């Protein structure tokens, strides 16, 4: 008798555990058209900048040397509390410079235009229209914001599995291999610092766009960077794309990067 009631208890406990685990799974399978029960809408701030798909055009003709890019990199890393790691393995970077054949490894020639071969290229998250990192993330900690196409990170949901890092064809993502806070020179209290064990990357300055400011790198770029709505035919970026020949990184992969380079 005693053993049968114990067995019954174990059965019930097992069913209960299964039920708790199954509920969210059923929720997601039952929800149609990406609607989740209890969904809500965020109201935008009055001064916020709006776009359907933010994009950036980098005019590399205006770049001569590393010091031309340096202000953009330091502006970004400063306001976003990006640490300066001593160990290169643990390096964190949101926006940085690469030589042409590293930035465009699938589009190099042996004999190249001298300017393109010698200048540094600015690279950052491409905020792809079809981002492989978002496809890979098992918790939706990285997601493509529907309102404006920014590929964002929820640092509090990320479990640190680093699947997104394997999925990104641009090496745009960094992982906090250790607590980054001791390596931040001056903490910007307006932006969160990260903890160890989560992935981070460029967020197209979503926090600045929300209050009507352009991304920090664009502001510091001295006209090298242009930011705007890719889907608005009259936007500044579309004007540049119309009148200049541009390339994107690893176009053949179908990720549709939203960062364009005038060469």
């Amino acid at each position: 008798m005693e053993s049968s009631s114990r067995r019954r208890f174990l059965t019930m406990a097992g069913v209960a555990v299964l039920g708790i685990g199954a509920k969210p799974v059923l929720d997601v399978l039952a929800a149609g058209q990406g609607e989740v029960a209890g969904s809500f809408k965020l109201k935008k701030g009055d001064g916020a900048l709006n776009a359907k798909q933010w994009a950036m055009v980098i005019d590399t003709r205006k770049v001569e040397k590393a010091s031309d890019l340096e202000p953009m990199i330091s502006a970004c890393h400063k306001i976003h509390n990006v640490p300066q790691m001593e160990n290169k393995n643990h390096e964190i970077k949101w926006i940085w410079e690469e030589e042409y054949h590293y930035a465009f490894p699938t589009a190099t020639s042996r004999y190249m235009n001298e300017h393109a071969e010698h200048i540094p290229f600015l690279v950052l998250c491409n905020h792809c229209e079809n981002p492989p990192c978002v496809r890979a993330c098992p918790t939706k900690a990285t997601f493509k914001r529907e309102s404006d196409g920014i590929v964002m990170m929820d640092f509090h949901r990320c479990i640190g599995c680093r699947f997104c890092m394997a999925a990104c064809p641009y090496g745009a993502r960094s992982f906090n291999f250790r607590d980054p806070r001791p390596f931040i020179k001056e903490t910007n209290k307006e932006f969160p610092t990260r903890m160890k064990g989560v992935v981070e990357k460029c967020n197209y300055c979503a926090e600045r766009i929300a209050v009507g400011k352009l991304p920090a790198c664009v502001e510091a770029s001295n006209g090298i960077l242009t930011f705007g709505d890719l889907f608005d035919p009259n936007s500044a970026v579309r004007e540049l794309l119309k009148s200049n020949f541009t390339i994107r990184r690893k176009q053949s992969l179908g990720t549709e990067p939203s960062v364009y380079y005038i060469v």
Partner: protein
Amino acid sequence: MLELALKGNKKYFGWITALLVLVGIGFGAYLNQLGFGLGITGMSRDVSWGFYIAQFTFLVGVAAGGVMVVLPYYLHDYKAFAKVTILGEFLAIAAITMCLLFILVDLGQPMRMFNVILYPTPNSVLFWDMIVLNGYLFLNIVIGWNVLEAERNNVHYPMWLKPLIYLSIPWAVGIHTVTAFLYCGLPGRGFWLTAILAPRFLSSAFAAGPALLILLCMIIRKVTNFDPGKEQIQSLAKIVAYAICLNVFFLLCEVFVVFYSQIPEHMDHLKYLFFGLQGKSSLVPWMWTSMALMVLSIILLVNPTTRKNENVLTVACLMVFAGTWIDKGLGMISGGFVPSPLHHVTEYSPTFPELLITIGVYGAGFLVLTILYKMAVGVKEEVRS
């Protein structure tokens, strides 16, 4: 039945204690990693998965390999395997336990692990991997336990078990297919971006799993009164022989496509592994050793005179296991990250604490395996006497 695992001689408890010590050392190292972060490992921004994920991948194969005794027995009614199916199922349980532990120790924020269930994401292969791995663990526990209990009570196992047993066969193929899909669906990682990856994973799994099983049978025969049987071991050996041939064949298919097409993004990873790239070549000796082990083991396993000699067979199985372990547990993951998508060459090698944690996880897996096998062998001895 667990009580069978509580009785044993000095050697048995000595072995258990040794494994517990390994688990303890690994756990201590893990606490250190939990405090500092994954920075204590050799992983980097460029090589963001390392030894843990590689062991995970290899062990999913070992778990799937268990199906090579389940399938002939339950699907083809190959009676000889009745004696050893339980060993295959219990090996799968131990291997999956290690897989889940390796995933756990690889997470940057392990305490958020349940976010995978709280925010289920069907477009992520990792979500499906979580489902198939836990499902396979569950199936093998239920099947293994009930079949063994029935054997102990000298009755036929309950009929409701039959559909679960049939389900476990394609499920075994599923776990390793989904695990391959983790890698082969990623754009920009030329080494993994190949449709042959899942078949390659499966063939190496069906070689490594049964090879380990043969070695375990040899050990069981030595240290207990239960003999898994000559015929059983020879049948397993044939399975290993076919599987390792297929594994090398699939690898050569990949080598042909990559080196005949000469597309750099696909070629450079194999170049790095087998010849070195930009002067970095730490894996080269390992990869050639792996090739040599696999080719030699084919010669020993295909040739009936050498295969039927159990001493030679033991050596051949060790070679298969070591060869596939190097291929998957060392080369497969690092090879995909070197060179990086930007074509930088950053090498990876595990650090000492990383190895301690790895040994701890293996210790935990072998502890589970020992306890389960003690139970199984105990029942077999009981039934025979």
